């Protein structure tokens, strides 16, 4: 409760300070993210990470709205933020289908969009834009690393599944790009589905030697619990989304020992990350997730650009963003020519620290990894 009051107060202070120091240096950020309904944990983490990063900046004003994971609402909010709030920068969207609905229109109206999460392939390839920057990953990335990990773990026959929406398709494409074995089965599930009895029965019958799945948020909780409960003992591999801090508690012991791939981990050994992890815990009283780290990095990137140029001078501001001159929680971080991160992707393992389930890094999956769509993007 105190946290909520704090947050309201800090937003209030931000708004109040904007009245006092209304000058040309101010930058207005519109954050559209998922704060209610299924998947709200992701949006809340991105928001909290971002707000933590910009907490001490007097020149940033943030307007936060809830998209309820609905594309039509996200579009309305974006229109409102661009037309009546007159924001300079948009950010916050979690889901790729929402990003596809909002981002192309926003960037073509001369707004910057910094993505703290969704990185659909369409916006990395032919649909790339000079005002669009992705601070998290291109959607395929973590799955590519999972494919690579499946090779090195000696898996030859994998069963793969993901939800039927842009990021799900990118996930399976990414996995298949790196995985050298054969597929025991390939399934697209409904977005938001929580019962996987049908799919688990097919996995059982498929004689696969491993399972790869991309099921973010509550979907992954349901899948992992039911999978563990079904008594199938085929090992699973996945991207970090189903094994991250926000949901590990809900998955429970079923997740223990699972290898997952991530561009970030709580135990990454660099100064920026240590500061982020301890600040986040002090501020919100919980461990940060990878979504929180993405929100935080987005905020830090924005501030680094503001120190170099005014947002009114779009050309210089864009150059400042492109140079990515900030201390990322991931250590090394730079942008490829299509404005997506070049970064290391790690293989993590779910472990228990005391009573708390969390992750530790076991190896580097892909070093200085860029994305497969660079050549398709001409800007």
């Amino acid at each position, binding site marked *: 409760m105190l946290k909520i009051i704090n947050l309201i107060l800090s937003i209030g202070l931000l708004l109040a300070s904007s009245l006092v120091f209304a000058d040309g240096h101010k930058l207005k950020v519109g954050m559209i993210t998922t*704060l*209610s*309904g*299924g998947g*709200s*944990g992701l949006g*809340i983490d991105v928001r909290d990470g971002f707000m933590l990063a910009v907490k001490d900046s007097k020149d940033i004003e943030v307007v936060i709205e809830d998209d309820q994971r609905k594309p039509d609402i996200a579009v309305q909010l974006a229109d409102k933020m661009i037309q009546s709030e007159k924001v300079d920068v948009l950010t916050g969207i979690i889901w790729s289908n929402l990003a596809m609905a909002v981002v192309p229109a926003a960037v073509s109206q001369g707004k910057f969009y910094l993505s703290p999460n969704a990185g659909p392939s369409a916006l990395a390839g032919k649909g790339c834009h000079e005002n669009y920057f992705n601070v998290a990953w291109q959607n395929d990335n973590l799955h590519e690393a999972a494919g690579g990990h499946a090779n090195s773990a000696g898996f030859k026959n994998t069963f793969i599944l993901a939800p*039927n929406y842009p990021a799900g*398709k990118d996930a*399976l494409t990414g996995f298949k790009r790196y995985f050298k074995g054969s597929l025991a089965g*390939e*399934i*697209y*599930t*409904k977005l*938001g589905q*929580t*019962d996987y*009895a*049908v799919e688990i*029965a*097919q996995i*059982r*019958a498929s004689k696969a030697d491993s399972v790869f799945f991309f099921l973010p948020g*509550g979907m992954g*909780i*349901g899948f992992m*619990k*039911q999978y563990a*409960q*079904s*008594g199938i003992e085929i090992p699973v591999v996945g991207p970090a989304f189903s094994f991250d801090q*926000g*949901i590990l*508690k*809900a*998955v*429970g012991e079923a997740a223990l020992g699972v290898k997952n791939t991530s561009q970030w981990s709580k135990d990454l050994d660099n100064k920026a990350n240590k500061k982020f992890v301890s600040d986040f815990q002090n501020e919100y009283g919980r461990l940060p997730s990878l979504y929180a780290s993405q929100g935080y990095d987005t905020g830090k990137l924005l501030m680094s650009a503001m120190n170099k140029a005014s947002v009114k001078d779009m050309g210089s501001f864009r150059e400042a963003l492109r140079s990515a001159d900030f201390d990322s929680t991931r250590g090394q971080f730079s942008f490829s020519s299509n404005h997506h991160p070049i970064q290391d992707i790690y293989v993590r393992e779910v472990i228990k620290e005391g009573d708390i389930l969390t992750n530790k890094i076991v190896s580097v999956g892909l070093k200085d990894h860029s994305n497969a769509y660079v050549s398709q993007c001409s800007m």
Partner: protein
Amino acid sequence: MTAELLIEQLLNGLQFGFMLFLMSAGLTLIFGVMGLINLAHGSFYMIGAFSAAATFAFFNSFWLSLFASFSCAAVVGVIVEKTIIRKLYNRDHLDQVLVTFALILFFSELIRWIFGAFPLYLDVPKILNGSIEIFGGIYYSKYRLFIIFVGLIIATFLFFLIGKTNLGIQIRAGQYDREMISALGVNISKLYTLLFGIGAALAGLAGALIGTIQSVEVGMGEPILILAFVIIVIGGIGSIKGALIASLLVGLVDTLGRFLIPWVLQTITNPSDAMSIGSAIGSMLIYILMAIILILRPTGLYGKKLS
């Protein structure tokens, strides 16, 4: 495809059907007898799941949390009926929809305020963990069998309640002529409170049973509410028998459709197209089923004939 897989999927369909029955039984009684459109039925499902998760966190007992789920949902149901729903019986359906929709928003925010936005944990008890060999090398999850079993018990209980007891006679009479039975001295407002409580309790129980193997999170009730409405329309409003048959029908059609359609399509196109087309058709299937049934029987399978 093997026979084992097909049988396992049939069982999955049955399990899903019985789960839907727990949701739709309460909804159809409330709609049929009280004439009330209750959109907040999904909220009782969520309340059941959250009270189970909270109890589980305190006492670490699945059985206690199961008990907490339906009793909490029933208590909340009775309070809501006595304070809010009661004022709606004589209003038209639009008012009922508006108020019960507001209740959804209210309960979602309340739960988030109390428990936070992150999903909670509920676990299957040891005795129901893992799977069991049913016959001839066919393994099935013990917990899902348990859900089928609970569904059967509840169905039997409801048929007994409606068919063999005094209360059941009043409920059936209430469906046909509300004014007459109150003229005959039946305390109709007490009957309504009781019915609403039973409906909420069943939804709460369903929430805990499903929350145990899925995730307990805010907004978990809405997707299942839509299915429950589809079921009561297919089954015929007010009919428990209709709700049971429609639940099993929807459960089986949805489960088998999701699994068989892509499999059939694979014979004519490549696997990845077959999968995406198949899953798209699979999710439409129950609505197609509903349309066909409504064309053939406009009041549903066991609905009252239009006079």
